[in-house]
Each structure stands twice: as C-alpha cells, then as structure tokens.
C-alpha cells in the first residue's frame, strides 16, 4: 500500500509544480468515538478513540476540458486500530470526453442504485470496511470505463483489472465480529487471484417519471465468504474467500410528486449458491412542515435475501424506518434518524445523524448508534456492546 501511494503522490507534486492550472480542493477531519460500554473482546480498545483523515483532490484539464486528470488520495490515522490506519487511492483517472461517449481510465468509484438503507446493486467498488459499518465508504477500483449516451439511454461498459480486498477492523478495533478477519490469508476461487479481470455492463434510462437501470457483472465477488481458520500465531480467525460470480440486477425509481418509490433486486450465481435478494420501499416528503422552511422525509424500506438465515449479509428479512429532517437554513442543518429491525432475529440497530455547517469551511456532525441483538447467529449480536457516539469536525479547502 505504501509503495502504491508513493507514485501518485510524486505524480501529484509533479503536476502541482508543473502547472498553475491544477485545481486543489478537499477536506481534512477529526473524529472522536465514545463507547459507554466496555468492549466484548479482550484486545479491543476501551471507551474512547480519536481518528483523523485527509482527502485532497487534484484536478487538471486540457484540450478545452475534453481531457482531464483527477486524483483523490485518502489517508486515515486511527489511535488504536492498526488496520483502520490506512491509505487508499480513491481516484486517479484520465478522462476523455468525446461526442456522445466518454472514457475514464485508472482508479475510480462508480455508484449504482436508488435505495437508502442497503445498496444491493452497487457492485463495482469494494467496501472500505474499516471506515464505517454503513458500507458507504468505498475503495478505489482499477477500471477502464466506457460510457455511451444515446437516445436509447446510457450504456456503461467496464473492464476491471485488479481486485481490491475488503478491509476489516483489526483485533484492537471495535465494531467487529468476535473473531478477527485475517486479511493477509485471503484466498480466491480463481487461479488468477486478485489479478482476475472482471467485466460489467449497465444500461440506464429515464422514461418519464421512471429511472431504470439494468446491470450484469461477471468476476470476483466483492463480498467474501468468511471461513474459520487460524492466524499465523495459531489463534482462531476468519479467512476471507473470494468466489467468482455472475450477477444480474435491476434498479428502479418512480418519482411521483412527493413520493419516491424505490426497488433494487439482484440475482447472484456462484459455485456455492444461487439466490435473489431484494431491497425496496419509498420515501415520502412533507415540504414546509408547520408553515416553516423545514422538510420532513419519511423512509420505509424492506430487505430480503432468498438464503434466509444462511445469508452472509446482515439483511435477510429486515425492515427499515427512517426520518430525514432538513432545516433548509443557511447552515444546511440536517437530522437523520433510522432504525433497522431484523424480523427473523428480532434485533435492531438505531442511528441518528445530525450535521451543520459552521462558518465558511467547517462542518460538524454527530452520529449516535445503538445496537441490540442476542442471537449469536445474527451478525448484529457481535456489536451488542458497541453502542457509540461519534463527533466529527471537518474542514474543507
């Protein structure tokens, strides 16, 4: 990782010196996590943790903006968890824009999907699992991405050389399973290992009030099977095994006045399993509640996995309820609350996020998360003592 970061860093200092037209922006931040309960597992840190990150962005365009380079390195330092102290190239791409087509080559991130509580069809990028447990943070994926826009919609074609392994908290980290995931021993179904070239295609189109996407993916599953094994020191651990899969999926949103109806579904076929999974629901927004400028969005989603309790995902028969309060003030104050309830295990996780701008370049946020689960087969039960409050301060430049 250090070696792979060095080259782009040199490259960016080179382009920054070579040309005044390099645009630099980005953010730095610090966060504090407070845990009221002592940890479940002996190596885990106790009640407080401090962490900091930096994510600059470099942009350079030429040829009348028809060609541009974009570079976004990312570094995080964590007080206790050595696995969480990590770096990544979120993006390093050369883009060429043609007439009705564009080609992006390098390391990048692509998002697919419409739902809020789970991203079933968002396939291309690996989750950066040490960042947070919500799966929203992604690792940069090497790709050649051709996008063609026509009357019949947008067709995206991806060749994905090189695989990124999922990151997991280390032994000292909280918000992890009972056994540590030993990423050093990750193994693959494919003989090519992490050099397997994956392929993906997506067609998307807007038809009136409907936004539709269809995709196909063939290659290394981003979600590993976690098999029991031993660390090099002989301690019990989980070893990630990455299978080859074929996947097709659909995402659909109907935007009907103040209702947004959302559906994601995918079918996945691997050597061990073939199954469907669905996530769907709606978002209904009440605008200008009680004659104020505030908007209140109400979200309801349901997630289902054909494998039921055998599912490797924590969502197999889960209901999600949420509320989003936007103050629409000069500071863009927002409050988001959500609860997910597992209908099989009767466990829940509860989350409140609040954020607001401070002055010209600062943003403060607060996240509260509470977990409850008693059934050892339920993945959420490992987080039983990991209720926490996170305070974050970010500076944008």
């Amino acid at each position, binding site marked *: 990782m250090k070696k792979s970061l060095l080259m782009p860093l040199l490259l960016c200092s080179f382009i920054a010196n070579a040309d005044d037209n390099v645009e630099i*922006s980005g953010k730095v931040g610090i966060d504090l996590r407070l845990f009221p309960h002592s940890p479940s597992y002996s190596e885990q840190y106790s009640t407080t943790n401090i962490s900091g990150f930096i994510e600059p962005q470099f942009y350079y365009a030429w040829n009348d903006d028809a060609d541009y380079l974009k570079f976004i390195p990312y570094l995080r330092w964590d007080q206790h968890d050595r696995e969480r102290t990590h770096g990544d190239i979120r993006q390093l791409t050369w883009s060429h824009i043609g007439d009705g087509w*564009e080609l992006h080559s390098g390391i990048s991130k692509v998002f697919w999907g419409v739902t809020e509580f789970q991203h079933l069809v968002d396939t291309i990028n690996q989750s950066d699992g040490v960042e947070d447990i919500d799966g929203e943070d992604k690792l940069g994926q090497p790709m050649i991405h051709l996008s063609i826009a026509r009357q019949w919609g947008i067709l995206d074609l991806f060749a994905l050389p090189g695989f990124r392994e999922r990151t997991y908290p280390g032994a000292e980290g909280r918000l992890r399973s009972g056994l540590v995931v030993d990423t050093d021993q990750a193994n693959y179904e494919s003989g090519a290992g992490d050099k397997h070239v994956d392929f993906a295609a997506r067609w998307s189109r807007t038809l009136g009030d409907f936004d539709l996407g269809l995709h196909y993916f063939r290659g290394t599953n981003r979600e590993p099977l976690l098999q029991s094994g031993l660390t090099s020191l002989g301690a019990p651990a989980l070893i990630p095994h990455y299978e080859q899969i074929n996947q097709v999926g659909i995402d659909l949103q109907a*935007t009907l*006045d103040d209702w947004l109806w959302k559906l994601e579904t995918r079918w996945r076929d691997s050597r061990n399993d073939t199954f469907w999974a669905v996530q769907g629901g709606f978002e209904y927004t009440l605008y*200008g509640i009680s004659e104020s400028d505030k908007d209140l969005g109400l979200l309801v989603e349901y997630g289902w996995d054909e494998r039921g309790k055998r599912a490797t995902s924590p969502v197999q028969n889960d209901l999600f309820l949420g509320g989003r309060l936007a103050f*629409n003030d*000069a*500071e*863009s104050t927002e409050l988001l609350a959500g609860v997910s309830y597992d209908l099989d295990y009767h466990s829940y996780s509860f989350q409140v996020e609040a954020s607001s701008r401070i002055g010209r370049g600062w943003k403060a946020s607060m996240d509260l998360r509470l977990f409850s689960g008693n059934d050892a087969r339920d993945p959420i039960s490992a987080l039983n003592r990991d209720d926490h409050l996170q305070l974050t301060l970010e500076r*944008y430049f």
Partner: protein
Amino acid sequence: MRRHIMPRNYFLLMALLCLSAPLLAETAEEKGHAIAAESIARDTGWGDMKADMQMILRNKQGEESLREIRIQSLEQANDGDKSLTIFDKPLDVKGTAFLSFSHATEADDQWLYLPALKRVKRISSRNKSGPFMGSEFAYEDLSSFEIEKYTYKYIKDDTINEQTCFVVEQFPVDKNSGYTRRVVWIDQAEYRVQRAEFYDRKDSLLKTLSYSGYNQYLGKYWRPDKMDMLNHQTGKSTELLWKNYSFGNGLNDADFNKNSLKRAR
C-alpha cells in the same frame, strides 16, 4: 377649407377608434396575459447560456454567508428550459450538481449529483416553495418563466427606476406554490422585470425582489447583473450577483444528461 378639413379629421378619428377598439375592450386579465406573452416573445431564441452567480445571504444581524454557483441553460422549442447548475461554494457542497428539465405545467424532472458518493439521485420537484440553498429565493423564484404557470391581471401603470412600467398581478396555477400572488413591475420600453412583490399563502407581503444593472446580449436579450431579495417578515435578505453571461456556446442536449451531470465541474 374648414369644411374640407373636418371630414378628414373625422375619418382619422374613426380610424383611430377602430384600431384601438380591441384595446379598449381588453379586460385587465387579457392585458396582463398579453404583457407576459410579449415579455416571453422578446426573450425567445437565445439558444444557450452560461453564467456565474454569487449569492450573499444576510440575516437580520447582518451576518453574511456566501454561495457560488455556475449555470448552463439550453432553450427548448416547445418546452421549459434544460439547465445544469454546479455548486462551488460553500466548500462542503463543492462539486454538487443539479440537472433540471423544466416543463410548463407538468412537474419538472430533476436530478442531483452527490460527488462524495458519486451518486446521481432523481429528486422530487414538488418542493417549489422551499428555500434555495438556505437563501431568501425559493426554488420557484429561480425556475424558468412559462406563460402557463400563472394567470394574470393588469393593475395600473407606475414609474420605478425612471422606467414607466406595467404593474401586473400573477397568480400561480400550481397549488404547491408558496404564494397567493406576485405583483410584477415590467418596463414598457423593453418588457424587463424591474421589481416583484411576493405575497404569502395568507396574502401578506412576504418578499420584494429588485432587479438592477440590465445589460443587453446578442443585441436583443436583457439580463440583470443584480437581484436583491428582501424578506419583510424575517428581515433576512439575499443579494444575487450575475457575472460572465455568455450566449451561443454551442451547447446541445448531450450537455444536459446524467453523464454531463456526473462530470460537471
């Protein structure tokens, strides 16, 4: 001589009366509609436009907050404009972009691009009356003007900014509008909006918008450099400054799709 002149004057008078007869018979509603139609007719055919916009938000205590936005729009023949809005400031929303296909009577189609997640979200355009980026401008104050969006009533002539103006009441058709009506001053020389007053759902005066620094582009189209919105009920105000207007950029429909939204910057 006199006998000769009289009938000639009489015929001239008759001719004038005949010509102006439709005008005299015009109701206040028809006249208000005709004024709006003329202002739209005079602002048709501009093709495409790019401009930079700066918004200075001020609260009652005079504390300021800055927004910087770039806008591209494309005129559509038989529909509302397409537009792409890119946010530069505040810095935490830098790179966020907004694509809108506006329609005269149907709901607009709108998408938002969130750069941190690289996510394009289709959003509801139902929120007409909400504040745009925390400012005193509501979304509906910034949307393209289409004749079908209002019914009209001419009130009187009045002189403001040393311009003789038509004063016209505009009643929004959309039930989701935050206003019962707008009262708009349109100058008779060039059919430019000089001032607009907004009346809330209780029909109390809510805001006044003043336009200034009009310049003409392509020898035909007038655009203001400054728009000042004052909220009478809260004492807050927003100053909107336009810079770098440019027309005839050769933009087309391909510059207004989800791909162009994602790479907007």
